[in-house]
């Protein structure tokens, strides 16, 4: 077996270990490579900067599950941090996955430890079955959710005072693992609310047409976007901590592609012509 064939036949487990090492080192010893802020992320920041803490309430649609890990979780954490910094009230509800309420509880648990008040500063309305249909039902009548996750009557929550339909929210942002068609179809287009979305990195390309058409006013996508957001808020968190490692990860993947292709072309040269396409 010559070198070129060897290059084509590295055991996958070696690849995995290399990947783990390359990712771990910058995680433990960050270098702090400066980053640029994308206009789609800045748009979300600007919307929240423009809200009025006296009267505005924000709705978070929490439609991600723990499966997507921090790639989905860092965006809502960064946005909620910003909302709290500015003293803006918010309400969370879930339509896309039964895991949503638990993800909200994680954020709330941290805020409560820091002295914020459940029910006054924020509330978690839980999961509503029916996906797209439920989104529309809630938008038409926000009190159709009888109780929150802690058994309080929704209509009696201080943060819900003055909220009847989706139009009473100053801003709606959905955090999901996919694309926001559900909200665009049922709420944004027919009722015209200010809407943005935070999703996982994978889904960003599919959302760009909606951003371009103005149906979605801002897009956050995964760790890199959250890191930029943390930078905007001057509060580096877990997103920023991962960025150097993320860079190295990209480089090593490009290296793997190159390695595989060099081996492929060199070994192809030596042999007979491959079957035609």
């Amino acid at each position, binding site marked *: 077996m010559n070198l070129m064939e060897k290059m084509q036949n590295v055991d996958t487990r070696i690849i995995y270990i290399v990947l783990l090492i390359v990712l771990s080192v910058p995680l433990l010893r960050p270098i702090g490579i400066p980053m640029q802020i994308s206009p789609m992320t800045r748009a979300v920041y600007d919307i929240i900067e423009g809200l009025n803490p006296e009267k505005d309430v924000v709705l978070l649609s929490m439609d991600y599950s723990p499966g997507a890990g921090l790639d989905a979780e860092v965006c809502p954490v960064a946005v909620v941090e910003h909302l709290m910094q500015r003293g803006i009230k918010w309400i969370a509800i879930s339509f896309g996955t039964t895991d949503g309420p638990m993800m909200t509880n994680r954020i709330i648990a941290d805020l409560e430890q820091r002295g914020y008040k459940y029910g006054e500063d924020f509330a978690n309305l839980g999961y509503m079955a029916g996906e797209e249909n439920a989104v529309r039902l809630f938008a038409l009548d926000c009190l159709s959710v009888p109780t929150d996750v802690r058994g309080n009557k929704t209509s009696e929550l201080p943060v819900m005072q003055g909220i009847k339909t989706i139009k009473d929210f100053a801003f709606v942002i959905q955090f999901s693992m996919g694309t926001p068609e559900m909200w665009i179809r049922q709420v944004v287009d027919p009722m015209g609310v200010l809407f943005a979305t935070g999703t996982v990195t*994978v889904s960003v390309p599919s959302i760009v047409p909606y951003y371009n058409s103005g149906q979605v006013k801002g897009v956050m996508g995964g760790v890199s976007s959250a890191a930029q957001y943390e930078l905007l808020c001057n509060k580096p968190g877990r997103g920023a901590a991962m960025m150097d490692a993320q860079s190295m990860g990209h480089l090593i993947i490009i290296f793997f592609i190159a390695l595989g292709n060099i081996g492929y072309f060199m070994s192809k040269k030596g042999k007979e012509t491959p079957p035609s396409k």
Partner: protein
Amino acid sequence: MTLVPGNIFGFWMFVVISAIVVYMIRASENDRIKVSIRPIPGLEAIEECVGRATEMGRPVHFSPGLGDIVSTSVPDTLAALQILSYVTGVAARYDAPFLVTIRMPNVYPLAVETVRQGYTAANKADQFKDNTVRYISSDQDAYAAGVIGLMHQEQVASSILAGLYMGEALLLAESAARLGVMQVAITASVMQVPFFVAACDYTVIGEELYAAGAYLSNDKGRLGGIAAQDYIKLIVMALIILGTITTSFGSTFVQELISK
């Protein structure tokens, strides 16, 4: 009862295109129009796939994807089953060993029936065996792992992946490519196409899946539906061109009309 403003154009567009769809489906069923579909290169490769397997004396693998028949993935799964019917016919003609793997319990009975009918239609009912169609697991990762295991065991020569795919598409296609399996992927799952393009020999993309289903099954109603989709697309393209021209001359007439 009146229309809410902002939906007037949309409503009439709905009525018009629904009428087109229904008319085309009926007209095609009654042979009033003849629908012919452009060649889809990946589909020609199916025969090559089966032929290759026959020469090597090893099986062809087919997967109708991860979709179910009770969710939004219905069209994808049905199209995949129509393709399955065609592939069965080719496999029967070539006497190639054939293997179908299933993820969704609901799809299993439909797939068994499709394959059985495919063999019967080719007058080779005796070639249909109980283990031709195999239920693997409803968990997508377990399904992928099971299929990869089978490919090793049975030394599959070529593989046809049709229908809806998710994250594990990467697993399936990459492992098969490593085994030197010739692959044709037919999917409308946009997110998975990059992996298929990179790892498979032929990739049939997006709506080509539905067209392929109609084309290979020769179901006249479905072919009519495909023709209707083309008309809708032409209407959309005309609107875009018209809007661009009027906008360039400083008029927002078309936009206002559509928003009415």
